[in-house]
């Protein structure tokens, strides 16, 4: 498929993925010995994740959007991700035993090798390498140089690795935002460009709570589904910023950067745009599919669970596609469990937020 290399006979029965994984772990240890390191414990959807950084550069680049999930030292980590770069530690990643995909204009190909025991991912766009060990719940993540990483792509770097490991704990990275009030929230779903970020951030700026604008960790808990925050940043287009009344005093023009998403976006901490509104988890009581409509007043319509699932599942499943367990059954359980709505958005940001507040308050 694609640029996959032609077969060459192997001389051994050893899984080449596991060989690479072992080499990547040893490279991290060398980087750690040379540059020192930090261990940061975070909790995502009740699962303790240890992030072990070699040197300072990767920690400075990747940790800030996850720092709000810090959990101290309690409990034993279920997941451990070892993170290093070559530029600051002087240690290179092991050579990939296959030809990486070509960088194609406007595309971000990823090469993936996946078995029941491990998964290797190599991104052509960023040069990142992830080697995941499903047996032990561990991974090694590597970049050549954090300086080459676009400013608006730092937060998402560990997302795929986290997805692969959290899915083994029945936690599902879901392409959705979540906003609410008093701990009860709506999962805001839809493909890119449907208005998720605009609705979520507009609602947060109008005084509601926000767990995320783009990705949550969904926990299908027995008492009801819960959406957990993943990143403390949101991505804004210039158009959304204008609609939400966010001026250059909050987001400087230079922060909008065109990267692999092909649209200029700024990655901005929620705290800067909606101080005190971030919440690490919301009990999900409804599903809302926004639709950009430019109406004077928002229009809220109850839709079937099947239509809600169609708004929610394809982008999540396509963006986290793997040979491992699929998120689809968990997403279907959610669409069956809560009422689903389509919200045709108004240009009145406050009125959109009021519509979401009615939904989560049970007054829709």
């Amino acid at each position, binding site marked *: 498929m694609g640029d996959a290399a032609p077969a060459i006979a192997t001389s051994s029965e050893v899984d080449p993925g596991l060989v690479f994984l072992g080499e990547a772990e040893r490279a991290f240890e060398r980087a750690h010995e040379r540059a020192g390191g930090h261990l940061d414990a975070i909790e995502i959807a009740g699962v303790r994740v240890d992030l072990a950084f070699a040197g300072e550069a990767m920690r400075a680049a990747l940790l800030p959007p996850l720092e709000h999930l810090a959990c101290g030292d309690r409990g034993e980590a279920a997941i451990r991700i070892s993170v290093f770069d070559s530029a600051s530690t002087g240690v290179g990643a092991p*050579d990939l035993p296959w030809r990486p995909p070509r960088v194609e204009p406007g*595309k971000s190909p990823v090469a993936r*090798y996946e078995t029941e025991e491990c998964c290797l991912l190599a991104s052509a766009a960023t040069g990142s390498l992830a080697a995941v060990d499903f047996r032990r719940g561990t991974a090694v993540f590597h970049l050549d140089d954090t300086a080459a990483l676009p400013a608006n792509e730092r937060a998402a770097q560990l997302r795929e690795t986290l997805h692969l490991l959290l899915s083994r704990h029945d936690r599902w990275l879901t392409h959705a935002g979540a906003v609410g009030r008093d701990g009860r929230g709506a999962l805001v779903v839809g493909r890119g460009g449907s208005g998720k970020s605009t609705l979520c951030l507009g609602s947060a700026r109008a005084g509601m709570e926000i767990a995320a604008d783009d990705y949550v960790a969904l926990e299908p808990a027995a008492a009801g589904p819960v959406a957990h925050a993943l990143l403390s940043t949101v991505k804004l287009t210039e158009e959304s910023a204008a609609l939400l009344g966010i001026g250059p005093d909050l987001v400087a023009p230079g922060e909008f950067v065109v990267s692999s998403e092909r649209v200029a976006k700024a990655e901005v901490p929620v705290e800067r745009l909606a101080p005190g509104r971030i919440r690490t988890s919301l009990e999900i009581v409804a599903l809302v599919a926004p639709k950009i409509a430019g109406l004077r007043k928002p229009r809220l319509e109850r839709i079937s669970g099947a239509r809600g699932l*169609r708004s929610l599942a394809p982008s999540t499943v*396509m963006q986290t596609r793997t040979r491992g367990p699929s998120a689809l059954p968990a997403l279907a359980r959610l669409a069956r469990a809560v009422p689903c709505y389509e919200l045709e958005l108004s240009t009145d940001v406050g009125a959109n937020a009021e519509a979401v507040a009615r939904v989560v308050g049970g007054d829709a």
Partner: protein
Amino acid sequence: MSEARLRINSESVVHETIEGEVIVIDLSSGSYFSLSGSAPDVWELLAGGVTAAEAAAALEARYEADSETIGTGVEELLGKLVEARLVVEDANGNGAPAPAAPAGRTAFEQPAFERYTDMQDYFLLDPIHEVSPEGWPKPAE
């Protein structure tokens, strides 16, 4: 009517049934599908492997309609499912017993098949190049 035994192409699709509608996501093309009307009955039969004739017979036991109407609807649906590669020939299968038909027959609804391609950009813009052990040790250049 084709004699081929067909089954769900579970190597590349994931699916869920909700409120009488089947949502199918094809991980190999980026398309997703909605099956409604009597199509979910056929999909349920495909889980165990089924021929067009067996599927039509099972639907005749459930619905009030003549065999030609049901047979044509089933054949058209299976043709679309095969063309979209959501189902494939089940060369070794013997079929599973059809789920029990409900006690009374109800009015027949034509199988409905809808294809959505609005997610294909994720697939096309961020393609995944699968590397298998068979295609493995091509040294990086």
